């Protein structure tokens, strides 16, 4: 042979992927008779459950706020009338009825700014003063006592505004605290490191309920009568400290994943410790643990429901309050709980979708 000749293989398209619902179903649901049987059984089960739920929740349901009709439909249909009847108490708790426009506006302001803060286009320096103004407006509206608004004690605040306020503020304060604690736990200074370890381990060793009890009942015992700060503030501090400990561990996971070379090259460029953390370590570490951070945020949001036990009637507590106050409506707890479940779900699901978006954003610089 007179030397081998290079024969180029012409490029050809990749094999066609079978797209579409039908081919997918045929392949995955009805591939063989066992699969087909399982599919059929599951379909029947789902169909049965769905039709039962629909007939209970829709067809036989009572939507009018009438206790008598609801009683009549009991067992066969849902009583959504209870939501209509008790809507204001579920949403606003014990807040004075005539003044409920105040928490309404305050919450809309707070939520509006919260949503804006999540959108990149609004990440501008004015966001900080905006937060200060909105928080000031929120507390002025809620508490009153100025601008001709009547005084409403924080023990009367309740419902969704309280839930949103507690969750937002404890997240806003717990997040930076968690970063500091995580950095402290990685510090080379033994005093700072032990302090952070003790804090995290101590907090993780007790349930949130005990922290809340301590904040609301035990803390005042150590202070002169009438000198202890507002119960709402104490509870807020309790939730913040509690969440920060968990969040700190999530952040520390990210910090540990940063190669030593990143810190060394930053140091070799003359950046100080704080510059190195802020510009090099934290952006990479936090981006890595977005799912864990959002997980903690969602947990904080739902944990606020525990403040009921220290007599702050946030959403869950307000729901109980609404139904327990009248014997006629007391039996319809399931409907009430489904309703607030829906509210919690909307918030938590939004957070988890937002987390996916953030992950996508930070992932863009990593493209290989």
């Amino acid at each position, binding site marked *: 042979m007179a030397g081998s000749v290079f024969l180029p293989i012409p490029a050809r398209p990749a094999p066609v992927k079978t797209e579409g619902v039908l081919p997918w179903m045929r392949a995955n649901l009805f591939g063989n008779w066992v699969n087909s049987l399982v599919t059929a059984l599951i379909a029947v089960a789902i169909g049965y459950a769905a039709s039962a739920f629909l007939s209970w929740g829709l067809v036989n349901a009572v939507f009018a706020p009438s206790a008598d009709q609801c009683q009549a439909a009991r067992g066969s249909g849902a009583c959504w009338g209870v939501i209509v009847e008790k809507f204001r108490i579920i949403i606003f708790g014990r807040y004075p009825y005539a003044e409920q426009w105040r928490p309404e506006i305050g919450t809309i302001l707070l939520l509006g700014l919260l949503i804006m803060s999540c959108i990149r286009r609004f990440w501008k320096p004015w966001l900080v003063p905006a937060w200060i103004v909105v928080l000031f407006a929120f507390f002025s509206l809620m508490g009153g006592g100025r601008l001709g608004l009547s005084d409403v004690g924080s023990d009367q605040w309740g419902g969704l505004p309280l839930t949103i306020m507690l969750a937002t503020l404890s997240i806003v304060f717990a997040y930076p605290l968690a970063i500091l604690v995580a950095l402290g736990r990685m510090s080379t200074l033994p005093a700072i490191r032990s302090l952070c370890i003790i804090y995290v381990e101590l907090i993780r060793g007790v349930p949130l309920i005990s922290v809340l009890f301590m904040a609301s009942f035990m803390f005042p015992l150590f202070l002169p009568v009438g000198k202890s700060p507002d119960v709402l503030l104490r509870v807020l501090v309790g939730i913040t400290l509690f969440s920060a400990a968990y969040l700190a561990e999530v952040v520390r996971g990210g910090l540990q994943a940063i190669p030593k070379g*990143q810190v*060394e*090259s930053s*140091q070799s*460029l*003359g*950046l100080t410790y704080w*510059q190195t953390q802020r510009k090099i370590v934290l952006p990479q570490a936090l981006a890595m643990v977005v799912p864990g951070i959002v997980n903690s945020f969602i947990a904080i949001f739902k944990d606020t429901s525990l403040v009921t036990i220290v007599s702050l009637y946030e959403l869950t507590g307000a729901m109980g309050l609404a139904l327990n106050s009248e014997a006629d409506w007391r039996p319809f707890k399931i409907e009430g709980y489904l309703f607030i479940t829906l509210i919690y779900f909307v918030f938590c699901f939004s957070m988890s979708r937002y987390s996916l978006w953030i992950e996508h954003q930070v992932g863009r*610089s990593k493209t290989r």
Partner: protein
Amino acid sequence: MAEPIISFERVNKWYGNDFHVLRDIDLVVAAGERIVVCGPSGSGKSTLIRCINRLEDHQEGRIVVTGIELSDDVKAIEQVRRQVGMVFQQFNLFPHLTVLENLTLAPMWVGKTPRKQAEENAMQQLERVKIAEQANKYPLQLSGGQQQRVAIARALCLTPKIMLFDEPTSALDPEMIKEVLDVMIELANQGITMICVTHEMGFAKAVADRVIFMDQGQIVEQNTPHEFFDRPQNERTKDFLSKILGS
């Protein structure tokens, strides 16, 4: 000899309590000198040059760099680091920043240079290492050789008096080694003080004023490349050279 820019006086360093990694190091480097450090793996070469910008601390002796003695004084260390650029084996570029941002970071935050000026200077440095067209890419989108050239440009952005290289070509594929060495040779010809840990003996012969051979934490032998390669004095050196030159 001109004023020394780096001096080691009987420097000793231990890792932990029982690993004596640098032993009685005496070393004087004149401004503008180009030094190549070689020696077997684990002999303490990286440790030696990392002591110069205090990525590692030493327990005994004195190290003076550009007239500043290295101690626990953080401000003094930061001042030294501003004048000492370092290039690592693993490049250590910041993956979350673009090439341009990698270069402007230190000038803007350490040197307090305005962004516009920092970017202009960065583009000049990128031209210098022949990679200006990649300015807006992220480091992981570049080849190893390109990344290392960016790392060199990054270190040059603070206009250091001294450049340290720790095996800058060891993580590279053979065809990329040359593009990095070319940049380093050009740098060497511009009169910057350079200390380079490398086993590229061609590079040592071409640019070094002095070759230092280390073994077991000691400087065993130092000489001009000519003398060092042709008439090594020490048995250990001869042994090492025969291994890496393969003769």
